[in-house]
């Protein structure tokens, strides 16, 4: 037997590229050579192109659909409507309320009505022009406040479309109404009169009261890789789908019933994902591609173009908010009230969960004894809204941070001092009564952020006349006249992992074997790598836990159990936890094998053993045996150790529907930002000069990737602060392109200094905290605060628009 034998003494190296190191991404080489297979790169010789006919109206009755002429177009293989959906006609993430293909009514502009399969995208387009749909156009319901509060507002959905969910207080167009009451408001809950009485009393008691309305615009995730993928019909009557998504199993759960197939006949494999940010939580082309593939017996490829992508995925909920804060003269908060209305658009998507986050985190990480929050998520005929990085916490954060700045101004305090005065810390209870039972060094973070070095003043620059340093850049719109500088702060509290009783477990299969004399670990999960670098982290965990450097990451598919979604900043925690747990089981089996072979001296417990540098090591007795010797080469009948494990976080609770109390969240994360801006008040242009941050991540898993998450998240917050808004008028998107919907370019983005703290969370694997979302919360209010400081304008709308900041006398 040609097994490479090594003495245990020549394997003294510890394992490199484990947890805490910054190894290269395993997919990095393929991504820079152009060979990484994204969902839009799928290609087969005999494939057909799918295309989607969408509603031109935000609200209309469908009187008839005639596909006769479309079918006559040469090269067209299929034209399908709702009549061709063999199974469930509706699907949805939380509520099954969205038609696979519209029937009876369309409820938003862009809703899918029919799908076509043809030999060329242009053939499909021509066929769609020949589909005749007769619509009776109806008045769209486009005002979210009316949908939430006006009992006479017409309904977007017929009553009974979604099941009763008493905890959500559904009524009319309300998908969820979540009140939160604390302190003096607790006893008065349910009586508007008594609540106003209490509010009057608190107002009288306060030395400073600030109130304002705020709006956050509809933000687009603007991932670069469009919705796309390929469905391939299988011989067993099932279908194989290669798709870019955030959660393979939740897709499978929605696709199979629509196709009338058992789940095991619908097999999904993750294709390369060109960014996600929440927009791939809901289905786009998945069912349509499978329907056409099963109908035609050929592989069907879908690729949305950018305009279609704006209609093809949910957006960040736009929010209308009213806030009031009262404080004592020393800055101590006395009370806060908030009305938060988020527009869910035509279909539910994740709206109820977004309301759960917006309400529970509605006042932020501040100690306030008396709180009244009313949060609503509603149906309208606007584009459907759902998950986007920050998920309900972003909207509230813009409002409560703006309020803190107003209050600081009213009291003549520094904004950082006011925040420290009311800062939460470990042991504090958020407004739902949930204790923050993990470190929350908020005051320290604020101080550190305030004390970071400032960028040079304009006058200190080597060449203050260099146009590249000015708002508007080389376009030469200004030479420095009318440019004023401002500094602002923002912070945000984000729940990490899924909340409100949802058991979003993850599964990992880990295999250890010896190949060619070398131990190799295979890690298999269904977790979606969307760019964040989970593939790297999975490998690091396997190296650290199993002491083996060579780790292979298997493609993510539905052949292994669910990993949950790549959202809520949860994958390092949950899939990381699953990989770590599966590794621990593999390790225990290896130790047992070593004992069985008599290689572990008497009296040495498992706690004394570890795997390191490819061998079994005892802390007291030293290296005991190499894995190569212990297991033997798998090709020659050696031992293969394989374990599959699920990882669950601790249970959480639903908020109660009357007082909004309950331990609804798994974990909390926080980021603090300081923004420095230059504003051209003549032309309404802003240049962010610096955007520095302090974030506590519990444990740094991969320093380089972590910075990429914080800088990337900060930049998406910058976009929301200054430029990003899907403009919707009467249910119509006015700017569905990258020409008209602007995201930050490299010129818009400043240098970002990041300070990372590591106060471990005792409940999570390695003490880590999800890191992707918190910076997206705090950078928006910090930048808007800086623009306020520069201009003196109230600025209650994010993004700030040019017309908001012109006409200022300097």
């Amino acid at each position, binding site marked *: 037997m040609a097994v490479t034998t090594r003495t245990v003494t020549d394997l003294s190296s510890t394992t490199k590229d484990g947890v805490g190191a910054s190894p290269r991404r395993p997919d990095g080489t393929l991504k820079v050579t152009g060979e990484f297979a994204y969902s839009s790169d799928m*290609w087969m010789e005999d494939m057909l192109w799918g295309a989607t006919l969408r509603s031109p109206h935000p609200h209309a009755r469908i009187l008839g659909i005639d596909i006769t002429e479309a079918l006559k177009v040469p090269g067209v293989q299929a034209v399908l409507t709702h009549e061709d959906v063999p199974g469930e006609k509706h699907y949805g993430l939380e509520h099954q309320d969205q038609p696979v293909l519209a029937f009876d009514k369309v409820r938003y502009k862009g809703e899918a009505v029919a799908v076509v399969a043809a030999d060329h995208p242009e053939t499909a387009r021509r066929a769609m022009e020949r589909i005749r749909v007769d619509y009776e156009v109806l008045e769209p319901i486009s005002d979210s406040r009316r949908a939430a509060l006006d009992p006479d507002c017409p309904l977007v959905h017929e009553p009974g479309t979604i099941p009763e969910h008493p905890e959500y207080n559904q009524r009319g167009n309300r998908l969820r109404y979540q009140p939160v009451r604390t302190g003096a408001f607790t006893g008065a809950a349910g009586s508007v009169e008594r609540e106003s009485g209490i509010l009057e009393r608190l107002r009288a008691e306060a030395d400073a009261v600030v109130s304002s309305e705020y709006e956050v615009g509809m933000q687009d995730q603007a991932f670069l890789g469009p919705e796309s993928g390929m469905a391939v019909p299988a011989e067993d009557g099932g279908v194989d789908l290669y798709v870019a998504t955030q959660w393979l199993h939740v897709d499978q759960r929605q696709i199979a019933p629509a196709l009338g197939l058992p789940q095991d006949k619908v097999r999904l494999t993750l294709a390369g994902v060109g960014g996600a940010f929440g927009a791939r939580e809901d289905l786009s082309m998945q069912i349509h591609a499978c329907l056409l593939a099963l109908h035609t017996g050929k592989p069907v490829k879908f690729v949305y173009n950018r305009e279609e992508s704006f209609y093809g995925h949910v957006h960040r909920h736009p929010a209308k908010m009213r806030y009031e804060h009262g404080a004592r003269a020393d800055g101590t908060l006395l009370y806060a009230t908030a009305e938060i209305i988020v527009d869910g658009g035509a279909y539910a998507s994740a709206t109820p969960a977004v309301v759960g986050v917006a309400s529970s985190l509605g006042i932020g990480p501040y100690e306030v004894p008396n709180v009244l929050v009313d949060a609503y998520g509603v149906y309208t005929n606007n584009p459907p809204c759902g998950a986007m990085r920050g998920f309900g916490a972003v909207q509230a954060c813009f409002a409560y941070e703006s309020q803190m700045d107003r209050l600081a101004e009213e009291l003549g305090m520094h904004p950082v001092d006011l925040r420290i005065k009311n800062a939460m810390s470990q042991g504090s209870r958020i407004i739902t009564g949930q204790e923050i039972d993990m470190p929350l060094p908020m005051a320290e973070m604020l101080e550190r952020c305030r004390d970071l070095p400032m960028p040079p003043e304009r006058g200190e620059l080597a060449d203050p006349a260099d146009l590249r340093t000015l708002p508007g850049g080389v376009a030469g719109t200004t030479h420095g006249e009318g440019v004023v500088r401002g500094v602002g702060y923002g912070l945000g509290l984000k729940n990490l992992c899924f909340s409100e009783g949802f058991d979003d477990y993850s599964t990992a299969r880990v295999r250890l074997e010896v190949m060619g004399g070398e131990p190799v670990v295979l890690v298999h999960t269904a977790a979606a790598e969307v*760019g964040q670098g989970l593939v790297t982290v999975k490998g690091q965990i396997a190296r650290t836990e199993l002491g083996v450097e060579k780790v292979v990451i298997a493609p993510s598919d539905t052949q292994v159990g669910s990993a949950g979604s790549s959202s809520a900043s949860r994958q390092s925690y949950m899939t990381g936890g699953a990989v770590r747990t599966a590794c621990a089981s593999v390790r225990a089996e290896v130790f047992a094998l070593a004992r069985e072979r008599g290689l572990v001296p008497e009296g040495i417990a498992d706690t004394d053993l570890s795997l390191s540098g490819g061998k079994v090591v005892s802390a007291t007795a030293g290296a005991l045996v190499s894995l190569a010797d212990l297991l033997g080469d798998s090709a020659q009948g050696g031992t293969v150790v394989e374990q599959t494990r699920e990882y669950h976080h601790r249970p959480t609770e639903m908020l109660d529907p009357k007082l909004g109390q309950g331990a609804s969240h798994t974990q909390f994360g926080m980021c603090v930002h300081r923004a420095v801006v230059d504003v051209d008040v003549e032309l309404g242009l802003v240049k962010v000069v610096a955007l520095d941050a302090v974030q506590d991540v519990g444990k740094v898993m991969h320093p380089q990737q972590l910075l990429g998450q914080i800088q990337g998240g900060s930049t998406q917050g910058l976009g929301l602060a200054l430029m990003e808004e899907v403009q919707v008028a009467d249910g119509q998107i006015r700017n569905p392109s990258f020409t008209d919907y602007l995201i930050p370019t490299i*010129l818009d*983005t400043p240098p*970002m200094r990041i300070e990372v703290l590591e106060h471990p969370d005792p409940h999570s694997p390695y003490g880590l905290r999800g890191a992707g979302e918190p910076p997206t919360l705090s950078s928006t209010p910090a930048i808007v605060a800086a623009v306020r400081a520069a201009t003196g304008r109230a600025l209650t709308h994010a993004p700030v628009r040019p017309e908001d900041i012109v006409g200022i006398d300097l």
Partner: protein
Amino acid sequence: MRVSFNVNGEDVTADDVWPGESLLYVLRERLGLPGSKNACEQGECGSCTVYFDGVTACSCMIAAGQAQGRTVRTVEGLAEGTGKGTERALGTVQEAFVEAGAVQCGFCTPGLLVQTDDLLERTVGAGMPAPGDAEIREALAGNLCRCTGYEKIIDAVHLAAERRAEAGSGA
């Protein structure tokens, strides 16, 4: 229609091309070169950037017929040596992007690599000083990235410039 041109040093011909197709579509769907990316297909994002007769351009904005007889170089042509993809050594810019952590989802990466390669050709490659931050930002202003916040991309460009300058000076 039939379109013939040179891509990454190889003469190629695409048949049955519909005149409305872009060069990007021909590369991706007819020539098996999907490295150039289809993020906006309207010339705004830079993900499909290629060298077109030596000048960087968005291949989505070039009609297939315009490529007739021209020379195109894509991300697939940036690696060094011969052979296919991973059989070759990464080029300096490719290596720097992976090493610096400038790649997340990677969809913008091919366009950025071509644009960066061009910037370095025009600067350190032409005996000029390595570009500073402001020059890098101007050069890459047409390439959108949604993941990174660009900081690591700037690091990668500096790293690549340094290495190319070293290689150029024979150090």
